[in-house]
């Protein structure tokens, strides 16, 4: 009897080993993108051509911003090092083609999630890393206090090919204002043309307005009107058809937000491992099994938090401390703190 038991345990152990082995390789096998990323040893990430706070290269050529941090999180999870990212700056025009053609594997470029893009362009939005909304900037001495002061005959500078342009058209049509659109491909051209007085207003996402305002020659001469005319949920995008890769990117972002919710930071992550709270134990990898389901190892989430930080740290570093939106986080605060940042549980 004991003889059999010994054989049985070894058989069970063998099956268990085989099973974990196959589940791991199954996930990796199913995902061409994951396999290629591991082979190349870097994550190919599409970013903007320079938008302070979101994706911007500093003087030394290092990319930083909340969008950049999503790619860094994916690299930390998959490759073990947040610095193993190759950034490709993309214009609004190039971004979807670059992703579809396989030039980049993650597009983290202040891109608004819409039905058309999700369904028609063969893309998958994995989540929202910044809740934005479109607003207007006008000259302070114009006396305009809200969009109610807009009049027919005004001209508005903006970027073409974005949801901004479509929202503007809808908004003005609803208000029955006959306006002139002066549309540029680059944000800085639109901003400077507005600054010169060619346009009465400049419109883009409010975070963008705040960032562009700091660059205008006299920031204090301009105000951002209080209204928000659209919902602009910005988030990372992947190609359709690679469910494993999609999950990895989605949960790399979710883990940062989850970590903030449970107070796990880059500084205390190792210490929090010994916490008794099961949610924290899952986030830090003290309770194993989460990474396996994504085809990753057990420390994937701990590496993200230690190397990139939780969402709150990333937001503070890139958006608040840089003076872009120094005040309260508004909708981008956690749901527990009056915002709408809410992610499914990590379990």
């Amino acid at each position, binding site marked *: 009897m004991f003889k059999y038991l010994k054989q049985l345990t070894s058989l069970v152990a063998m099956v268990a080993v085989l099973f974990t082995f196959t589940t791991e390789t199954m996930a990796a096998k199913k995902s061409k993108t994951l396999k290629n990323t591991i082979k190349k040893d870097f994550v190919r990430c599409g970013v903007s051509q320079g938008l302070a706070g979101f994706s911007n290269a500093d003087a030394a050529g290092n990319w930083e911003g909340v969008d950049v941090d999503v790619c860094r999180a994916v690299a930390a999870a998959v490759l073990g090092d947040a610095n193993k990212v190759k950034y490709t700056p993309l214009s*609004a*025009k190039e971004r*979807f*083609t670059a992703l*579809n053609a396989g030039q980049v594997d993650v597009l983290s470029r202040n891109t608004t999630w819409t039905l*058309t*893009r999700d369904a*028609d*362009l*063969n893309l998958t939005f994995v989540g929202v890393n910044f809740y934005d909304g479109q607003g207007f900037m*006008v*000259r302070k*001495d*114009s*006396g*305009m206090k809200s969009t109610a*002061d807009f*009049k027919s*005959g*005004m*001209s508005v500078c903006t970027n*073409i*090919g*974005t949801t901004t*342009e*479509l929202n*503007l*058209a*809808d908004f*003005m*049509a609803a208000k029955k204002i006959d*306006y*002139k*659109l*002066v*549309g*540029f*491909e680059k944000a800085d*051209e639109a901003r*400077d*043309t507005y600054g*010169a*007085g*060619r346009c*009465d207003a400049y419109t883009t996402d409010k975070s963008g307005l705040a960032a562009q305002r700091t660059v205008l020659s006299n920031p204090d001469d301009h105000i951002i009107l209080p209204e928000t005319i659209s919902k602009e949920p910005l988030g990372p995008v992947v*190609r*359709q*058809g690679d469910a494993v890769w999609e999950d990895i990117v989605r949960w790399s972002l979710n883990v940062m937000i989850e970590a903030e919710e449970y107070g796990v930071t880059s500084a205390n992550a190792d210490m929090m491992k010994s916490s008794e709270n099961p949610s924290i134990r899952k986030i830090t990898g003290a309770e194993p099994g989460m990474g396996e389901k994504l085809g990753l190892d057990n420390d994937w989430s701990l590496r993200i938090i230690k190397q990139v930080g939780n969402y709150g740290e990333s937001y503070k570093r890139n958006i608040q401390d840089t003076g872009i939106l120094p005040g309260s986080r508004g909708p981008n605060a956690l749901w527990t703190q009056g915002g709408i940042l809410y992610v499914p549980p990590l379990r």
Partner: protein
Amino acid sequence: MKKIIPQAITLLLIFLIFGFFTYNANVNMSNRGMEFGYSFLKRAASFDIQFSLIEYSRESSYARAYLVGLLNTLLVAFSGIIFATILGLIFGIARLSKNLLIKEFAAFYVEFFRNLPLLLQLFFWYYAALRILPLPHETEGFHNFYITIKSLYTPSLVWENLSIFLYLIVFSIILIFLLKNYLKKIQEKHGKQFPILIISIVILLLVPSSAFLFGGSSFEIEYPVYKELSATSGTFIGGLAIPPEFIALFLALSLYTGTFIAENVRAGIEGISKGQKEAAASTGLNQKQILNLVVLPQALRIIIPPTTNQYLNLTKNSSLAAAIAYPDVVLVFAGTALMQTGRAIEIVSITMATYLSISLAISAFMNYYNKKVAITEK
């Protein structure tokens, strides 16, 4: 047979290469789940366009948006070609002037504008020159013309029964053409000469203006009126508003291309040897006849082929509009529409076909004109 085989092989190779590209695009697009088709053209564009010659709103289709862009391209190309030709003629002849000041000024114009990159000139006009213009509420205006940073506002004509007037212009041009041929025949038969130019001008003035007397055509002048938009900004309502994007593109294109045409004109005139003029004079022709019957017909043969190239260049260069927000076919269609629909292959193919068609049409017209002025050997 020997001639056919290499040609057949070449043809086969071309087919194979194009076949490969089509197949490759097909396979890769279906792998990524992208479909190919032009049905998106019927969908509502839902974006606005700054400047349109035809009626357009956000509810119009993508096809309509394409048409708006195409007409804007044609507008700037056509007006650019006209102005560049006028500049070319003036400065080409001025370079041969005996007056040193005129000659040097023309040489300076040609050398300066020819040797700077076009994009740089465009940026100069748009981002520098037109940026220092006053705001609408700061300008006094000049006889109802207002030059501001927002637009050039001019009075415009509001027509009644414009079509009758236009038909009569077409009619008088046909009339002049027929009359000219008839008078030429008389001249060949009897040697009698007629003042064709004066007769043509009289017809062109008299016939269309009869529209005002009998056809019910009339027009009123509409003046731009200032409208306040806010405490520090305003605009002008009524009249014609020409946006600075158009002006900058128009100036850059025609000043740049004008230099090349000026050189063509100079080459054409200098290409006629002095002996030709002297021989013509010795047969008893006067100065005007020498110019019209001997110098110009030969000079045009030299001028037209390279000038055709310049017209084509100007048209293609008009796509630089995208850099300064002038809504041409590249900005509106290959820009905004492409980004909104993501249909890169379809839209780029349409845009390429558009430029090809415009260029071929210009070539065809200029070839026809070139054949007309070429020396017909008998």
